[in-house]
């Protein structure tokens, strides 16, 4: 009985497996086709920015769109880097300063504050943390006008001070994120240090901070990204074009030279480029960071 059955079942099994494999392959192909199509849609603006950066204005608005610039204007980069109204290196320096100062302030203040919320008991702590979360819902513009008036009264408008000082006092979102990390560290570690007579600040600085280093890098990377993107703050507070960060410099450049599309695209490329470089080195932190922001919501 079994001798008769085996070959038939075997054959059917082979057939079915072959069919399954074919189905699997077709499925994989369909998925990749879809994902590649979507990828192309996401990448076209990059492609258009880069190729337009290598054209001249006539090529950009040529009757037949040029998918590849002919001739290639590499000289655009040399021109754009020191174009009147777009002093690239100066703007780059301003952006680096702005992002650097904000990031240092954010990382240290948020780490300390998050540690306080996560590991130390004090009266009113949970209420205060609840308030902290609630502030995430306040549209920034609601606090912006009186803050502006306050800084104007102290004569600090026109400088980076109003953009940097508040960041040394914490940020609700990053506090929330880092608190989760500090909560995940076993209590015995700090208890042992306490028994050994270590002060709370030393426990924080020497034991806790090194343990949450990956999370601190995530915060730093996000802080750099969002400061680099910041447009509204610098637009309101800064006056001297030589002090602009890249985003605002690019905006000013476009407003003044609305017809110079090729150079505007070159300038855009130069504005994006540093971030792409940072991203390439910190990619896994970016991806992990985005994942974290959603999960604990």
């Amino acid at each position: 009985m079994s001798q008769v059955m085996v070959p038939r079942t075997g054959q059917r099994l082979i057939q079915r497996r072959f069919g399954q494999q074919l189905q699997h392959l077709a499925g994989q192909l369909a998925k990749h086709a879809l994902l590649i199509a979507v990828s192309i849609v996401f990448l076209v603006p990059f492609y258009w920015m880069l190729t337009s950066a290598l054209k001249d204005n006539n090529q950009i608005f040529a009757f037949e769109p040029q998918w590849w610039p002919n001739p290639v204007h590499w000289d655009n980069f040399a021109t754009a880097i020191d174009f009147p109204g777009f002093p690239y290196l100066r703007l780059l320096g301003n952006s680096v300063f702005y992002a650097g100062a904000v990031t240092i302030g954010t990382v240290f203040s948020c780490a300390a504050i998050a540690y306080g919320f996560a590991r130390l008991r004090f009266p009113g702590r949970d209420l205060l943390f609840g308030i902290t979360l609630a502030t995430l819902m306040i549209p920034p513009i609601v606090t912006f006008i009186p803050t502006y008036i306050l800084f104007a009264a102290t004569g600090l408008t026109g400088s980076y001070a109003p953009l940097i000082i508040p960041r040394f006092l914490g940020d609700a979102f990053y506090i929330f994120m880092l608190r989760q990390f500090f909560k995940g560290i076993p209590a015995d570690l700090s208890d042992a240090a306490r028994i050994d007579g270590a002060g709370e600040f030393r426990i924080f600085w020497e034991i806790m901070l090194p343990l949450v280093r990956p999370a601190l890098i995530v915060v730093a990377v996000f802080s750099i990204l969002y400061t680099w993107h910041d447009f509204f703050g610098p637009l309101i507070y800064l006056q001297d074009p030589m002090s602009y960060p890249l985003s605002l410099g690019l905006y000013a450049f476009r407003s003044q030279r609305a017809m110079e599309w090729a150079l505007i695209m070159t300038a855009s490329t130069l504005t994006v480029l540093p971030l792409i470089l940072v991203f390439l080195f910190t990619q896994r932190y970016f991806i992990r960071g985005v994942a974290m922001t959603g999960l604990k919501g």
Partner: protein
Amino acid sequence: MAIAIPTRQTQTRALPRLNREARAGLLFVLPWLIFLVVFTTYPVLGTFTLSFTDYSVIQAPNWIGLDNYQRMFFQDPSFWTAVKNSVFYAVVSVPLRLVLALLLALVLNLGVRGISVYRVIFYLPALVPPVAATIVFMLMFNLDTGPINVALRAIGLSPPDWLRDPVWAKPALIILGLWPLGIEVLVFLAGLKEIPQDLLDAASIDGASRWRRLVGITIPLLTPVILFNLVIGVIYSFQVFTPALIIGGTTGEPLESTLMYMVLIYRNAFRYFSMGYAAAQAMILFAAVALLTLLIFRSARVWVHYEGGER
């Protein structure tokens, strides 16, 4: 523990001063306390108070009662234009983003090879500063030579002059806002990875089809992440500013079609320096966002699935 707690309390009560841990804790959060007072509480109350004045930077504020609100609601057509524009933007873009991001995440989660490459590609646009992204899309949307219209013409459509057409300028803003969609995709993807595989396997063994598993397990377990993306999406969409300002200027060209609510506030506060009037408009935005968030959280009780152990 049961013994430790009363001892601690008696200790605290006996000593008028806080214990060592509490003092350290307060010291650690002190910067944030200062922030909450100086950069949150004071400005929120300040905006509320300013909204009843005619403050204009040059002159000291005069109390004018509800005049700003009356002017906004009954005498300023720009206000209603901006409200309509922003509501249109939010109503179209929030659901569109949610659905597209969820679909992309679901496809990425089907176990495709090279997922890390796609992840990077989807995330890249989120790196581009909004100013640069907007400027690039101004070329992308060009009537004759922009790749978008070239593609639309290739499939036989006669595309509009997006940014110069009052009907199409807002859809163009929504489309360019989709470029950094990768952030939401990654958030959804992380949520999908948290769904226990054994649950899906069990359903699979019980004969549940792929569709049944999606509707019966994946989507319900993903609802907290959907809620997160929805709340963030609503809050952000009502505050869209940079692309609208760059494309439409402070007047919302063409024909006020890109005059978003934030652009209106910016114009009143920092171009006309009508701080009092802008403050009133900011309060309306605050109330609208608060109300919407509240409604979403209320509705969440019905449609969001929470697993036990909330942290």
